[in-house]
């Protein structure tokens, strides 16, 4: 899967942030080179301007060559025009460079995000990922397209001016150069102190983001409990923390900036004192001192600016680290590199041996759990599934029943390989789930999850999510009617073009469940897993849905998790799960006859359903 990413993260694990970002910049480096040419033109023009003023004073005013005035004035304007155009040019190029590099970077972030497994998402807050993909990425853009040429400007000016100064008078220049060690020490100290502060700011921002995100998502609960004041109080804590983090950074700046600025200022002091001394001693001419002075701003500016640029650089670094953590997060679910070929081979051998026609493009739908035990990777001590062993032939129906938290959802997520078993194997069509190419396995094993997530799109668009518009409206409607959703969709003002809000807000629980079932059916999976999908649907509708499912064109292996006996009673195999273990198995009749746990649940539901007054219970 790494092939899709612009840059392979495994290569630059240990390198510095600049080296790490380089591959993202590489395609646009010619642009940077061109920008550098314009940058040089700009700086040259900037240096020419004082010379022109000097010429006007010397030639026109002092020596009276009035005829040259017009030409010099025009030249000033022309030089300025060249300067502003070249500056505009390199700024735009650098901006484009930054945008393009960040485009590649954020694309990789997005790609990586979709490669990560459920374990990662269970423990990472949405707001946290959000801030990495937005503010942190923006800090990197700022670093690439602004800080870069500001630093270049400072370095070029400092070195260039100092070189000119050495030519004019080496003693004074040497004296000025004495500040460099201090500059070095101070900026180093500033950088090392600022780094953790920036990191803390980024973290605080991520916290703030997460808090607000959660508040928006949970707005119904907040309102139901009138917890607005409490939420505002919590928000204020985060808001204040973010401010305090920024203040801490300002305190650090307050500690170093005056020294760095003073260092720049002291260059004027040295020129005045030591330069004046040299002139008075007769070791230097007055003219040299004056021209020295006119170049002073070129080295004093960079020194004074250095501190702020260091801050910018550290912000860039802090953001790099946060993004690198996202990009190098390891997914436990990784496709085998040779998955496609090996599955193809396995299927073709199986075809030859068994004589059945099969293709590696379409899964038949056989499921086999071989002594599967499972514990979540982050809680290895607590087994969730214990020694599950069962076989479901292609095209048949499996029903799973069990208490809340017995491991039913975990069991089915192993089939689509959202987790890997800790012990044992899950075989799909006789091939280990770990050996299948992920895309293929998941596109044909469809879990209709308990929490229905709908995208903010039209209802039609949501149902066609898996087909991406590949099928016509008729097909979408057909699937909706199988899922028992067609009626209520039609009764909506805009029918299939009604836009549903994020997570399907505005729809009732049963409506959302039916939409997500229709979406799964439209994807035409070989294995359809319904994880308590009809819990909020009334029983009549549920019966209709089950009836329709049997009429589907293509045979599907259907796995149903439910609490209602009525949802699972027609299954070819029913498993009763308790604390991660299969405690009973068989068909409805067998299980009822066994007078075990299933029978108990059945009797309870029957009894509760009919009421004791009716005499059906005990």
């Amino acid at each position, binding site marked *: 899967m790494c092939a899709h990413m612009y840059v392979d993260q495994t290569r630059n694990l240990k390198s510095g942030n600049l080296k790490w970002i380089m591959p993202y910049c590489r395609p646009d480096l010619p642009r940077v080179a061109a920008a550098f040419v314009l940058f040089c033109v700009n700086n040259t023009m900037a240096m020419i301007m004082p010379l022109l003023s000097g010429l006007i004073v010397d030639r026109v005013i002092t020596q009276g060559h009035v005829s040259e005035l017009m030409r010099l004035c025009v030249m000033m304007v022309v030089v300025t025009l060249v300067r502003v155009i070249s500056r505009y040019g390199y700024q735009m190029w650098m901006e484009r460079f930054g945008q393009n590099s960040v485009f590649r970077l954020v694309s990789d972030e997005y790609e990586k995000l979709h490669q990560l497994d459920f374990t990662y998402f269970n423990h990472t807050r*949405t707001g946290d990922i959000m801030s990495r993909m937005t503010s942190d990425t923006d800090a990197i853009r700022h670093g690439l397209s602004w800080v870069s040429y500001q630093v270049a400007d400072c370095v070029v000016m400092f070195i260039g001016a100092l070189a000119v100064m050495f030519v004019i008078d080496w003693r004074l220049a040497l004296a000025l150069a004495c500040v460099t060690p201090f500059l070095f020490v101070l900026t180093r100290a500033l950088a090392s102190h600022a780094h953790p502060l920036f990191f803390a700011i980024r973290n605080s921002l991520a916290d703030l983001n997460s808090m*607000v995100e959660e*508040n928006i998502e949970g707005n119904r609960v907040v*309102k139901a409990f009138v917890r607005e004041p409490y939420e505002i109080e919590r928000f204020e804590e985060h808001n204040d923390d973010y401010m305090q983090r920024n203040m801490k950074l300002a305190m650090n700046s307050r500690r170093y900036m005056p020294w760095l600025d003073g260092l720049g200022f002291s260059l004027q002091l040295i020129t005045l004192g030591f330069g004046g001394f040299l002139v008075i001693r007769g070791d230097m001419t*007055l003219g040299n001192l004056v021209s020295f002075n006119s170049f002073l701003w070129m080295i004093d500016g960079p020194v004074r600016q250095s501190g702020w640029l260091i801050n910018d650089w550290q912000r860039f670094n802090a953001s790099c680290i946060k993004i690198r953590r996202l990009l190098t997060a390891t997914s436990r679910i990784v496709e085998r590199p040779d998955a496609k070929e090996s599955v193809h081979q396995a299927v073709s051998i199986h075809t030859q041996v068994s004589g059945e026609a099969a293709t590696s493009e379409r899964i038949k739908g056989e499921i086999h759990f071989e002594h599967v035990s499972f514990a979540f990777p982050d809680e290895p001590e607590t087994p969730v599934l214990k020694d599950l062993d069962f076989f479901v032939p292609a095209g048949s129906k499996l029903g799973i029943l069990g208490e809340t938290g017995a491991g039913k959802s975990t069991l089915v997520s192993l089939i689509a390989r959202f987790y890997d078993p800790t012990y044992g194997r899950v075989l799909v069509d006789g091939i280990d789930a770990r050996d299948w190419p992920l895309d293929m396995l998941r596109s044909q094993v469809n879990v209709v999850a308990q929490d229905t997530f709908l995208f903010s799109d039209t209802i039609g668009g949501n149902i066609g999510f898996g087909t991406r518009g590949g099928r016509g409206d008729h097909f979408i409607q057909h699937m909706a009617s199988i899922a028992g959703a067609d009626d209520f969709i039609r009764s909506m003002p805009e029918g299939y073009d009604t836009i549903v809000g994020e997570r399907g807000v505005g729809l009732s629980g049963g409506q959302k469940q039916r939409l997500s079932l229709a979406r799964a059916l439209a994807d035409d999976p070989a294995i359809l897993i319904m994880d308590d999908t009809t819990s909020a649907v009334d*029983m009549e509708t549920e019966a209709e849905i089950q009836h329709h499912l049997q009429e589907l064109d293509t045979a599907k292996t259907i796995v149903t998790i439910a*609490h209602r006996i009525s949802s699972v009673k027609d299954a070819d195999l029913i498993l009763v799960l308790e604390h991660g273990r299969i405690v009973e198995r068989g068909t409805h009749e067998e299980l009822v006859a066994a007078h075990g746990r299933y029978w108990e649940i059945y009797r309870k539901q029957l009894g509760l*359903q009919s009421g004791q007054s009716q005499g059906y219970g005990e």
Partner: protein
Amino acid sequence: MAQRNTFREDEELEEQINVHDLLRVARYLKPYLGRVLRVALVVVLMSVIAVTVPYLTKVMIDETIPHRDLRQLGVLVGILAALIVLFECGMRYRTLEITRVGQLMLKDMRRDLFTHVQSLPFSYFDSRPHGKILIRIVNYVNTLSDTLSSGVINVIADVFTFLITLVVMFAIDWRMTLWSLVLFPLLLLWVRVLQTFQRRAYQKLSNKQSNLNAYIHESIAGVKTTQTFAQERAQFRTFQEQQNDVRTAWMKAVHIQFLMWPGVQTIATMTIAFIYYAGIMGFGGVSVSTGVLIAFVGYANNFWNPVIDLGNFYNQLITCSAYLERIFETLDVRPEITDRPGAAELPPIKGKVDFNDVVFRYEPDGRNILNLVDFHIEPGETVALVGPTGAGKTTIVSLLSRFYDVSEGSVTIDGHDVRDVTLDSLRRQMGVMLQDTFIFSGTVRENIRYGKLDATDEEIEAAAKAVRAHEFIMELPDGYDSVVEERGSTLSAGQRQLISFARVLLADPRVLVLDEATSSIDTRTEEALQDGLRHLLKNRTSFIIAHRLSTIENAHEIFYIDHGQIVEHGSHEELLRQRGAYYRLYESQYAMIRAHTGAVD
């Protein structure tokens, strides 16, 4: 419900920013005006010091060096050193204060936004992607940071410098000064023209950024769905389209922004060239000495620097205005449901609930969701609502907590119209367990405590025991202190329901609403739950929505709702005797289970 916005569409902006909006920003500045002025004063003093330094150099060149006066050189060095120390003290003060003022203002603005968003109704959250709300509270406000702090302070200092320079110039030679200002209108024109384009470009950019943010947010929230359908490639393509839109809008916006400086700089140079020309050629009645001319060129430079800075600030302001507009727009959304002026506190609820011919529709000209719903409940009764999905059951209970207002008729509790009492006092006494359970990141204990913030640990445990959540909570690695992640992603759906159930019970509401509270809970737990529930429903008016009829058989009154109307009502036995819709529902449920029932009896 109004047309919903998605990540694909730009949001229309109803109002344009104007001076009034800028004044609104000034309101955030007001509490810190003292600080701002103090910093501005320091900044002005610092620039005075900076201006003094060339004068010291001039003294050295004109006096010290010709007189070879080492003592005076020492004095000059001393003065300069003292000035540097003074300057850096100012620097120390400025660095911290500018950040402080800026951060305080941002903090206020963020708090106002967040507080305001809390008061907005469901429909606000339902009608737009959440990523778009998020970006306003966090990202947009952050983009204002520099403009509001250092920007404002520098502008104050710049205006000051500008005026001083202008006064000095007029004092030296008023004709020359007028000539130096001749291109000023050109500058204004340039700024004005760019501003129009720039504002539009930044509005577009903020729109695209908002769309991208919404898309990213939705992608993260829906990543499991995307993986389930193996649609990563398609999502990725849409993402790149969105990102590309932002890139294009960005390049357009900065393109205009970058044109500002070249214009100002060119006009500045032309002015200087013109001063030279006019001064030397004695043009337009100007007659000045060389000294004055040189001084004027120097001043013209000083004069343009603040102008360039002002231009930059204006630039930033325009950039920000695109974000400010969004922020103010959000602040201007009036919540549809607010306390009526002079609304009274609702006294402790006894539990009499009346729906008087209630009609409800989301939009004035929309379809009726509820049609003449009329019922009257005595205190302490348990009411069950049954009926097909989408019949309007959830809407009925939403009206009770006044999450929406009725279109016609009225809802009264103990004879008080819900619209006449404060929202706070109403909702505080209602306990609503919603269809969508929501678990906050934090510990299990904190999640239950959300129902009653000052609950003791014993109370929390008691509530958990009552809903049979205690058992599974104790099995979690750290019991009640186990950390549950955002949306409770590490818990099963049933466990999440039990936790939110406990949360509602802890709140000890006077009126209890259970909307599909037990749909994901297994039979055995549910049965156990029923015992606890019976106890809890006693003496409390309760509304229960459920598909599993077992949950509701003991209700005093059962309403069968279809198409927004009560079709049948009565007790379980009465309804069965009527042999109507409820009877058919009941029979079909029973029949479905009984279908294979030969073996059981």
